[in-house]
């Protein structure tokens, strides 16, 4: 995973509550065996017309003014639904580095953090302010400081957001968590010696 400390980018908003993972990436795109190329499937059923190819001119991500936005501002409870890690892969593939909402579904948040896509939790007022800013001016830019855990709005107001210490450490240092777990091998062995396996699938 790449190190992530600062994000500076323009915002685009999808002010819809409870955006589920089936909207972020519909199941028919899950037949892949790698992570590549999922960006074009992000929000596919909102982004393209019936034929699945022609961009829907009414969908904000197709608006030329918002091209290149790297911070997505969404309604409450973003990422509910399935455990598919294809959701953060698709968002990253579509150029996003962070998603801002008032709340994230657990599995989505975990998956996002493991891929360097930053879930930023803000209060409802800040969320509304960002919705309006994005609407009024597509060039609205925010900056994010992971170390300081702050999101800075165009008016200079810095809003802090929660981030657990471990995820923060991993993001800042580009550490992936598998390395951490592999290093605990002795402890795991000790656990296994005291706790016989419960079932044997190979038996």
């Amino acid at each position, binding site marked *: 995973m790449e190190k992530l400390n600062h994000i500076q980018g323009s915002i685009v908003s999808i002010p819809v509550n409870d955006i589920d993972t089936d909207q972020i990436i519909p199941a028919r795109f899950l037949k892949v065996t790698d992570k590549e190329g999922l960006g074009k499937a992000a929000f596919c059923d909102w982004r393209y017309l019936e034929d699945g190819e022609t961009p829907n001119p009414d969908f904000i991500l197709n608006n030329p003014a918002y091209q290149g936005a790297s911070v997505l501002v969404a309604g409450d409870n973003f990422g509910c639904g399935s455990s598919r890690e294809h959701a953060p892969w698709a968002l990253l593939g579509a150029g996003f580095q962070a998603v801002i909402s008032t709340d994230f579904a657990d*599995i989505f948040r975990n998956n996002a953090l493991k891929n360097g896509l930053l879930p930023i939790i803000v209060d409802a007022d800040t969320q509304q302010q960002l919705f309006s800013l994005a609407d009024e001016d597509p060039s609205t830019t925010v900056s994010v400081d992971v170390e300081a855990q702050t999101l800075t709005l165009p008016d200079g107001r810095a809003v802090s957001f929660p981030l657990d210490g471990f995820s923060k450490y991993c993001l800042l240092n580009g550490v992936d968590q598998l390395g951490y777990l592999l290093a605990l091998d002795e402890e795991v062995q000790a656990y296994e010696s005291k706790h016989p396996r419960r*079932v044997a699938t190979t038996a």
Partner: protein
Amino acid sequence: MTETGKPRTLFEKVWSAHTVRDQSADSPAVLYIDLHLVHEVTSPQAFSMLRERGLRVRRPDQTIGTMDHSTPTTPRNALGIIPVADAMAAKQLDVFSQNCSDFGIPMYALGDEHQGIVHVIGPEKGLTQPGMTIVCGDSHTSTHGAFGALAFGIGTSEVGHVLATQTLLQNKPRTMAVNVDGALGDGVTAKDIILAIIAKIGIGGGTGYVFEYRGDAIRSLSMEGRMTVCNMSIEGGARAGMVAPDDTTFEYISGREHAPSGAEWDAALANWRKLPTDDGANYDEEITIRAEELTPMITFGTNPGMGMPITAAVPMPDDEADYNKKIALDKALTYMDLRPGQKLLGKAIDVVFIGSCTNSRISDLRQAADFVNGRKVAEGVRMMVVPGSQQVKRQAESEGLDEIFRAAGAEWREAGCSMCIAMNGDQLQPGQYAVSTSNRNFEGRQGKGGRTFLASPLTAAASAIAGVVADPRRMLN
């Protein structure tokens, strides 16, 4: 670190028995995983990661694979083979076979007599047992909590972690007691309980919590009913739901392929009996529902929290005080092409889907078959019945349920996720309405442009016969 004397919840007991390392200020807990279920859709990138790093699967003996999501459910051909028409799906299945064989993981392939939906086969093989930790790259892993296991869905990176280390980094969730007291009325089932709970708390209401379902109504459910309830914990935002094990649990497990036997059974039973929450233990949150107030439930919108009693009318967005919620409701009704204040009873439907890890077990099929027996599926309605596993399918066939369904005009399919996820050829056409026993009614979930009403197998069967959304209570013999 014994906490003798301090009353503990079921969750606490299972959690603390599995911490390789406790949670600290700097890092989450490291949790040992007893059973890892893998399937073709969320595992390929995890196996690739193992390959890139030259890692092996630490405990293939605690891992099991099955094909379910991208598999077709079309009947077998003359050679007894289920053909896979979709080239990408075929490749995904091949990659999965190769991965399982390279890493020594036992796996049930498409067509195998043990194959089925991952959350159906774990319990049916006796692999799911009380007090275990169980994970799978699938959010409905919560199903296995019905046995008093701590079971939850994980992402593909985490699938890789468990494959390589048999452990997971986890922040400790909070606990919520979900009490369902009293007795259910006729025609009201486990599915209605969970739809009512989600309608009450909303789809984000359980975020950060593990549910423990309690109360007489839960205790009186069969294991299959408890699985239906736990299955949809994730639709309430909770990653896991649990039910304390009792004699119903033990009877279900006893004699199954991987169940302990002899002296091991006695030892296991003694441990399992210690699992239920101690008197006086605290939960972080508690809610209560009265079972006798419940009716058959149905969803009207585009997430599982948008549910109501089947006799109710679709809510009015204008009555919604919260602006964001009003917008969400508006958007959902537009997608569903429903009018505010409209009743769903009598609404014409195109498809009825009986299946998915929520409701594809033998008792679900029996209930639906019993209802359609001697009746006919309404003209113009397609009814699909998709058993959750090959074992369920064989059992149903031995009881003649397939004949009952066929005689009524329904399709009897091979086992798999089918139209629950619509990535295997089974899908709604744009604009179609379905009454489905699955767990998600998100936009396009059952096929692009398709519209889903979630309900119980009984309500689904009644609607298939009536050709419209129907209240099964009015049609019970």
